[in-house]
């Protein structure tokens, strides 16, 4: 009997809760249930048997949360011992029951949050899960159940581990809250997209809610999923009664709701916390003979981030093209300097302007592209909730990025060459993704639409051989420059139409290629974009900061009844008087971002404010803009000043005095922290403009010195450190920001390598002060020339002295003061 066949043919039943039954048998609070596999095997076997007798087809091993973090050389029982005993207990119960039943190796969350938000590395999580999977598979489990997951990233690590360490079927259930969201923000559509991309065999939900609350969420899961769906609810909602957890519905009600859930289309049902063999028995009685609702493929083209899914093929999807160094010298420099701030800003800016997906290309000949791709993707996905399009021709970089991507990515790209298909399709099969498929092959770009359609057919055919569904391909109809090929646009448009009408496929285009070499390229781009959408274009790689392109987009949607009551169009353009050129209104994206919406701008307060010189003792418009923290105003006045005044003179005569004034005000207590930082940001905006001007004229601003900043190992709060960084940079120091959770040896290594004279260390917790001390010790040994300043919430002068730091910095300004002493 094979579990995958069984779930194709009938309703299959999971068992129910284990923990509370063990507690009834004497498991003590705080004691790991996993221990009982070894210490009380007879109790565990009996509970499994009770469930089997109640009618369960699958019993879950008593291994929830069992991993090497909890079972290792320091604990009474070893991992190997606990997992193998657990599988043996379950198998023994099946044997004793005399039934045909399955043993699911149960895998729960590690209890740790993954990096970069937490401290468990993705690959370490894969390894923890992999160890359990290997033991369980060897001991004869029939399938792997990954359950109670509330973080898509950890879920992905567990699925990869299951697939890489075992050939068993993989079932996954996640925990939604009452809003239908995962605790880390995902929704049914985003998690289903990722799990189906990873090719799990069945998916669904467990824990968190009772069956009643799960119905709405189940409806959404069923709408989007193409694989069998599992529902294992708690026995209702919990409440505490006399110190005991009790649930609000009884076994009969539970079973009745489970019958409704089965009628909706759930294929595998059972229970979680608070459910007992009685719940399962009654559920089996009601549901056993129900005719299963057929499982139908939904053919949706979906990509996802940790937080949301984007479906391609409904309304045109915009892919922001700006994270790409081609032709951008500042971007190239940012990559060489690991200046992620620059890259992240490009991302947020595009999101604010309405991008649905961000293309990420970090290819430069002289950099380690796989490492850079991983670094940039990890940072982007920790601050932006849009799905990403991984854009690289380096197969290693592609695999590395697909692996650590938190969701189902868009992949750029594959083409009709055998070599490309055999490189990319296996990755899509393993990690999941929708892939951009260029309609070209060994014989180049076909000149005719017919030729491109033939390549598209070959791409679909080969993808199918790898088990990749057609909806996971977006055919790139290719767009040649119209100035060199006057037939180019027509061929592209025809290809788009034919993919839609004849192949029933989805398409994508890099729209702006069309106008290369022509003046006022936006004219051509925007017109072509509209024509392409009309010909069926599903997704466009464009610059969302281009007003002309966005006008085409919003107008097309309004005209094609894709924008109910023209709501988005009015929201964006309402209040503007003319559609002429040179508009200054900022086009804000509609519906982009979930709870992470726009708002990078600052500088409330009128322009007139900044002109009121005198009261601050800083006598210029620029100086006053900085003092008052007016970013736009500072940028505008520095632009004006640069017409008549030398850049260095502006810095020394206007900006530094303003920064000093603010700094002193902060120290005296006439200004407080937000003001200090708003001033710093206004100054920074002005500096950026001056820097560009100096770079253009070949001038270089002298830096006063190089300073390392780091939050010490174990500490992942970095606000304090970042405040110091902003201030030091404004005072012309070159800051090497090593980030957070930085091991002592890394800090020492950089200090030695770059001969750095000043190191700033931050720690927030008493528990991380020892790593600060260790860092200082290392610096004293190997970089005795370096001065060390320390700061952070828990530190005191006394602590700093004990550790042998050179200076305790009570607040952000005092670090600037100390730097002036060291380098002065």
């Amino acid at each position, binding site marked *: 009997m094979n579990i995958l066949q069984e779930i194709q043919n009938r309703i299959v039943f999971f068992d129910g809760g284990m923990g509370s039954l063990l507690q009834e048998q004497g498991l003590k*609070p*705080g004691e790991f249930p996993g221990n009982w596999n070894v210490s009380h095997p007879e109790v565990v076997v009996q509970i499994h048997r009770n469930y089997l007798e109640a009618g369960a087809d699958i019993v879950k091993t008593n291994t929830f949360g069992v991993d090497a973090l909890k079972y290792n050389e320091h604990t009474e029982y070893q991992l190997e011992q606990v997992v193998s005993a657990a599988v043996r207990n379950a198998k023994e119960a099946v044997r004793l029951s005399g039934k045909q039943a399955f043993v699911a190796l149960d895998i729960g*969350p590690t*209890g*740790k*949050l993954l990096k970069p*938000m*937490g*401290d468990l590395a993705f690959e370490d999580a894969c390894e923890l899960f992999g160890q359990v999977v290997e033991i369980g598979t060897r001991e004869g489990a029939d399938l792997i159940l990954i359950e*109670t997951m*509330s*973080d898509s990233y950890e879920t992905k690590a567990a699925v990869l581990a299951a697939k890489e360490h075992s050939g068993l079927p993989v079932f996954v259930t996640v925990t939604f*809250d009452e809003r239908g969201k995962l*605790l*880390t*923000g995902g929704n049914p559509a985003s998690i289903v997209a990722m799990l189906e991309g990873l090719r799990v065999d069945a998916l669904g939900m467990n824990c*968190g809610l009772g069956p009643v609350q799960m119905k709405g969420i189940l409806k959404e899961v069923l709408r989007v999923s193409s694989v069998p769906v599992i529902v294992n609810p708690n026995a209702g909602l919990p409440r*505490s009664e*006399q*110190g005991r957890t009790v649930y609000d519905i009884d076994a009969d009600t539970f079973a009745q709701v489970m019958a409704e859930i089965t009628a909706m289309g759930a294929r595998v049902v059972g229970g979680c916390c608070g459910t007992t063999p009685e719940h399962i028995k009654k559920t089996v009685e009601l549901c056993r003979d129900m005719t299963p609702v057929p499982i139908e493929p939904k053919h949706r083209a979906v990509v996802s981030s940790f937080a949301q899914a984007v479906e391609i093929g409904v309304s045109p999807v915009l892919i922001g093209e700006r994270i790409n160094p081609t032709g951008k010298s500042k971007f190239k420099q940012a990559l060489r300097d690991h200046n*992620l701030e620059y890259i*992240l*800003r490009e991302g*947020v800016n595009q999101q604010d302007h309405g991008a649905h997906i961000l293309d990420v290309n970090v290819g430069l000949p002289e950099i380690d592209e796989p490492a850079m791709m991983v670094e940039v993707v990890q*940072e982007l996905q*920790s*601050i*932006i909730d849009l799905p990403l399009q991984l854009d690289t021709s380096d197969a290693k970089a592609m695999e590395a990025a697909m692996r650590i991507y938190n969701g189902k990515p868009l992949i750029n790209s594959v083409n009709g060459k055998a070599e490309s298909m055999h490189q990319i399709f296996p990755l899509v099969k393993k990690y999941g993704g929708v892939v951009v498929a260029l309609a070209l092959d060994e014989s180049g770009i076909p000149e005719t639409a017919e030729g491109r359609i033939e390549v598209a057919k070959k791409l679909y055919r080969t993808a199918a051989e790898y088990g990749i569904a057609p909806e996971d391909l977006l055919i790139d109809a290719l767009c040649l420059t119209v100035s060199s090929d006057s037939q180019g646009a027509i061929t592209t448009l025809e290809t788009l139409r034919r993919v839609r009408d004849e192949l029933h496929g989805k398409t994508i285009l890099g729209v702006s290629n069309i106008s290369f070499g022509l003046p006022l390229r936006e004219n051509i781009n925007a017109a072509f974009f509209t024509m392409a959408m009309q010909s069926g274009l599903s997704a466009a790689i464009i610059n969302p900061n281009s007003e002309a392109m966005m006008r085409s987009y919003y107008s097309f949607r309004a005209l094609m009844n894709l924008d109910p009551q023209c709501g988005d169009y009015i929201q964006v353009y309402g209040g503007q008087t003319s559609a002429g050129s040179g508009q200054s209104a900022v086009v804000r994206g509609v519906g982009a971002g979930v*709870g*992470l*919406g726009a*708002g*990078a701008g*600052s*500088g*409330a*307060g009128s322009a007139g404010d900044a002109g009121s010189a005198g009261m601050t003792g800083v006598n210029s418009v620029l100086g006053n803009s900085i003092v008052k*923290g007016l970013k736009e105003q500072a940028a505008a006045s520095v632009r004006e000043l640069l017409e008549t005044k030398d850049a260095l003179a502006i810095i020394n005569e206007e900006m530094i005095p303003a920064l000093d004034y603010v700094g002193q005000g902060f120290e005296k*207590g006439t*200004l*407080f*922290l*937000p003001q200090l*930082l*708003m001033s*710093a*940001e206004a100054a920074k905006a002005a500096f950026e403009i001056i820097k560009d001007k100096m770079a253009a004229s070949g001038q270089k601003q002298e830096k006063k010195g190089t300073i390392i900043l780091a939050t010490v190992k*174990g*500490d*992942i709060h*970095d*606000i304090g450190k*970042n*405040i110091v960084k*902003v201030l030091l940079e404004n005072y012309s120091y070159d800051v090497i920001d090593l980030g957070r959770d930085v091991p002592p040896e890394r800090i020492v290594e950089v200090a030695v390598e770059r001969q750095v004279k000043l190191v700033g260390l931050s720690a927030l*917790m*008493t*528990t991380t002060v020892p790593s600060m001390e260790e860092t200082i010790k290392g610096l004293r040994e190997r970089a005795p020339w370096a001065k060390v300043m320390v700061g952070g*919430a828990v530190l005191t002068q006394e602590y700093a002295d004990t550790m042998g730091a050179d200076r305790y910095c009570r*607040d952000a300004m005092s670090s600037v003061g100390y730097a002036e002493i060291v380098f002065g």
Partner: protein
Amino acid sequence: MDTGAFKWNEREILRYLGHRGQEVPENVEALIAETERELERAAVPKAYWREYPLTVQDGVLDMDCLKTTSRSLERNLKDCEKVILFGATLGSQVDVLLHRYSVLQMSKAVVMQAASVAMLETFCDEKNEALKAFYKELGWYLRPRFSPGYGDFPLECQRQLVPALELGKRIGVTLTDSLLMMPSKSVTAVIGASRLPRNCSVQGCEVCGKKDCLYRR
């Protein structure tokens, strides 16, 4: 959470920002207001608690799933026969925003840091008030919440408390090796329950021994 639905304690926000009575300029006020709206959209406050018996013997406080010695906690739990172990969080989206602004706009990051702490405190206060009312009906008087790290209540107790309450699974709160809670805007606490009322309930900064703290009231 609905925008505008939250009752903000502006004084606390300013205090966390190191405000000492200076004039608060308009653009800072606007930044605070904008941050509050953003937090209202992003925060998903959740709390979870469970009751445990309490016995005290030779200075050892035994709460069934948590055993510790702490004179300050012992004082706090005087006359108590049981405790409520409590956990609360604003959720991981707030951390995403904090991280985002600490890269892109430090001024907003610090305001958000302060506002989110104030939000969490208010949320915990509301939950605790509700618990107090509930228990009073049953003849129990609750003591102010007391968190690991306050006074001499060891932070190491988090290693017992967080798993015992299954906070990972219930509300998404996890612990790093260095005992930071993640999401960072999370709280755990012990709330004593006694048959005897106590009028003077010292709480907040005043229970803490760290007298040189920058943020002390």
